[in-house]
């Protein structure tokens, strides 16, 4: 049996057909179906004018931000296998990751540098959108979604800062929560709830951990979906 025959038999099986709804024959219809019938691709448009793909229209900054978000997701989940958000385990686990566990230091550094890079990429992305006027109608709402995503990116950076539970972390959160406390009216209460008390202790560590690993990433993922979908619905990237 030749390879071609084997392939023909494989794609003829019911299992294959139950997963892939159409044959891969290079036609306009099948190209469209490839996008339509795939949950990951369907957020993209089926067709994009070639001139919209020019590098200098976007400098790929939005895509880079999302790519970094995915890197952070994968490295972050791996770090969670060894990290316990408790005192004094947190600091020990961080050191164990850094000095004992295979590739632990690599993953930590990747997570850290990707986090820094994401803040830079998101900021540059916003600057690009601003200077190319891409916030103008009909894209005003997506600009607002983008601003919220910028804030979420900064909050993710900030909440991750406490988790190593070292001196830098402790004092950075001291300074940051005192800034929050300075907000009129709700400031002191907000700081109390954020820390789960009056001092930066166990409660604060667990709260920052849950925000960093669950609440903020979920919020970001939901808004990212809206953001990408709106890019397409508002007409995609248009040349200046």
């Amino acid at each position, binding site marked *: 049996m030749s390879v071609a025959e084997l392939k023909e038999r494989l794609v003829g099986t019911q299992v294959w057909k139950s997963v892939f709804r159409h044959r891969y024959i290079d036609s306009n219809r099948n190209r469209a179906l490839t996008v339509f019938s795939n949950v990951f691709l369907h957020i993209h448009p089926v067709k994009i004018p070639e001139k919209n793909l020019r590098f200098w229209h976007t400098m790929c900054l939005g895509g880079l931000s999302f790519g970094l978000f995915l890197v952070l997701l994968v490295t972050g989940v791996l770090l969670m296998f060894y990290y316990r958000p408790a005192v004094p385990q947190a600091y020990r686990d961080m050191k164990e990751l850094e000095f004992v566990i295979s590739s632990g230091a690599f993953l930590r550094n990747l997570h850290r540098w990707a986090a820094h890079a994401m803040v830079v990429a998101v900021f540059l992305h916003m600057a690009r959108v601003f200077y190319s006027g891409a916030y103008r109608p009909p894209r005003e709402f997506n600009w607002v979604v983008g601003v919220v995503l910028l804030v979420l990116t900064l909050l993710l950076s900030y909440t991750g800062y406490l988790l190593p539970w070292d001196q830098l972390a402790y*004092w950075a959160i*001291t*300074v940051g*929560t*005192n*800034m929050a406390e300075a907000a009129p009216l709700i400031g002191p209460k907000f700081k109390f*709830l954020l820390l*789960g*008390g*009056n*001092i930066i*202790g*166990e*409660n604060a560590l667990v709260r920052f951990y849950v925000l960093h690993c669950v609440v903020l990433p979920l919020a970001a993922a939901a808004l990212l979906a809206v953001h990408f979908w709106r890019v397409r619905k508002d007409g995609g990237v248009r040349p200046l």
Partner: protein
Amino acid sequence: MGDRVQDEPDSDRRRFLWITGVASLSAAGAGGAAVLADFVHPKVLFEPPTAFRIGRPEDFPVNSVSADYDRKVYIVRTEVGFFALSAVCTHLGCITRWLEDEQTIACPCHGSKFGRDGSLALGPAPRPLRRIAIRLEEGELIVDTTVEVQADTVLRV
């Protein structure tokens, strides 16, 4: 048969269901929000005490500044008497240090400086250090960090 759904015959019933639906959902939402707000509020805090014994008056020499960095206070004894300063910087909450050589209280985070009476010598701190309550009880000095007192308050011993 028009394009629109005819709601005329049932309009009272629809209106009733709409109002009761929205009302019950609002009530459930408000209840849920209240429960959530209560839930995120810790009921018991395991934190160091804010009022504590700091020592006997004779432990502190006249004209001295004694720092207790764990409990974040300075005990200052002048020729007149005692007062206590919070060691927490009024800028963004770092713990300041008493520099004996310079006779200055300095913050390592952003460089604020204070005199030995807590007065502001150099920004970015916006205010002098908090002067906190100190009292003498059965021969021991007791500090309460939650009670702020006037900047000229001195405990005469």
